[in-house]
């Protein structure tokens, strides 16, 4: 027998400064639906379970195929993407909350700017040619290409940081995603020319040494990126730089 309705319990917040509150919704069950389609159903008729017409629930989404990261939220207490959370596979009633490590804009929509600031800080890019053409870059081995491909799958969704006990709203920890990007660009033959600059950015407050090795990041990562390998690898690169700076400079 199929379920007639789906119950959702959603943590809501009207604006970045207001207090959060819970609301329950009940929508018709549809086979093969996901959390996003549930939210769309609520949007069609935003009526809370206590029969009050309410403002529709706000959420963020874009690609709907788990490559953009924008629909990341807490579903039944755990962080994941709403688009790949299939209603048939998750516990009901479905409890939805915004991520707790980022400022809430409204309802389930959060501001992940801190992650993008971290990418800028660690210079997560390969510098392009300056005033003159520098020609072709060095050749990359296939082994490095394969490693880099896995790392490049990071979509800055924030799952690793939401699950990280060391990443809190009131500290400046850069977090696993940024460290993994340092590894990605230090592995690139041209990017490696700025390796030291990237390492310097993670050798301070909120940097790689703040990592407590709880390894929750790698468990939470929806793209199965070997984040803890990246953290240990950046730990090695920074340790070697530390020793070089102390002994050779």
């Amino acid at each position, binding site marked *: 027998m199929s379920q007639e309705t789906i119950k959702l319990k959603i943590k809501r917040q009207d604006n970045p400064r207001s207090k959060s509150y819970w609301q329950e919704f009940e929508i018709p069950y549809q086979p093969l639906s996901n959390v996003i389609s549930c939210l769309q159903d609520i949007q069609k008729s935003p009526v809370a379970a206590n029969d009050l017409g309410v403002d529709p629930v706000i959420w963020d989404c874009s690609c709907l195929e788990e490559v953009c990261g924008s629909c990341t939220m807490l579903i039944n207490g755990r962080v994941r993407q709403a688009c790949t959370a299939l209603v048939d596979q998750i516990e009901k009633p479905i409890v939805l909350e915004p991520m707790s490590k980022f400022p809430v804009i409204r309802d389930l929509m959060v501001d992940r700017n801190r992650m993008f600031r971290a990418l800028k800080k660690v210079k997560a890019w390969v510098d392009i040619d300056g005033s003159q053409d520098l020609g072709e870059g060095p050749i990359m081995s296939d082994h490095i290409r394969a490693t880099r491909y896995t790392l490049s799958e990071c979509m800055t969704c924030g799952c690793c940081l939401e699950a990280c*006990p060391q990443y809190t709203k009131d500290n400046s920890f850069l977090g696993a995603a940024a460290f993994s990007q340092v590894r990605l660009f230090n592995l690139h033959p041209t990017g490696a020319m700025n390796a030291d600059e990237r390492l310097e950015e993670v050798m301070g407050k909120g940097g790689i*040494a703040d990592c407590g090795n709880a390894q929750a990041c790698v468990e939470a990562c929806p793209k199965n990126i070997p984040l*803890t390998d990246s953290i240990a690898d950046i730990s090695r690169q920074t340790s070697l730089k530390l020793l070089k700076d102390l002994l050779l400079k």
Partner: protein
Amino acid sequence: MAKINQDQAHFYLLKINSLLGLVPIGVFLAFHLGINSLRTVGPLQYQWSIDLINNMPFLFGIEVVFIYLPLLLHSLMGFYIYFSGKRNVVHYGYPRNWLYTLQRITGVLIFGFLIYHLGTTVVPKLFYGKHQFLAAPFLMDVMNAEFQTWTGRIIYLIGISAATFHFANGLWGFCVSWGIIIGRNAQRNASVVFAMVGLVLTVLGFATVLEFSLDPVPVTPTVGG
């Protein structure tokens, strides 16, 4: 030498903190538990080891530089680390996250235990001036008395297990934080090896507690007294 800014100081302190847990604190813990387990061989063997230590030149200086100051810095940094994170095993109960949480909890436990341990041994030893050959009978009397009650035994069993766990897990953390072990397999293999190290040290500690509890023998000073 170039001036160190606040950012670099933060990084160096955390790196040094990780290293301190291994050298000298971890090495001291291993020696301490190892030498104490001589008590299971016999009271005299144990007494000789205490005599040897308490007749070392510059003993107090060595203790301060290689034990008390590193422990103080490690404790201060530990509390800073404790409050810099927010434990979340309730929602993300992965094994490593449990170890992360336990590492912090045992750190706090050990801090409390060390205040008790120093307060009942080193502080009265210095206060009553029990130096050189007088130290062993005094300290062994203290230990014999401690292990007469279950309260004393339990305090030590908890203190020893907390310390050996913190050291074994900290060895793993040191190896990852300094980038000595990187890959997932290497990390798993290392954790097995370090768990064995922790287990051996725990057995040494527990055997010593057992021996003291079963056979409280008072001794007289080896020389003089």
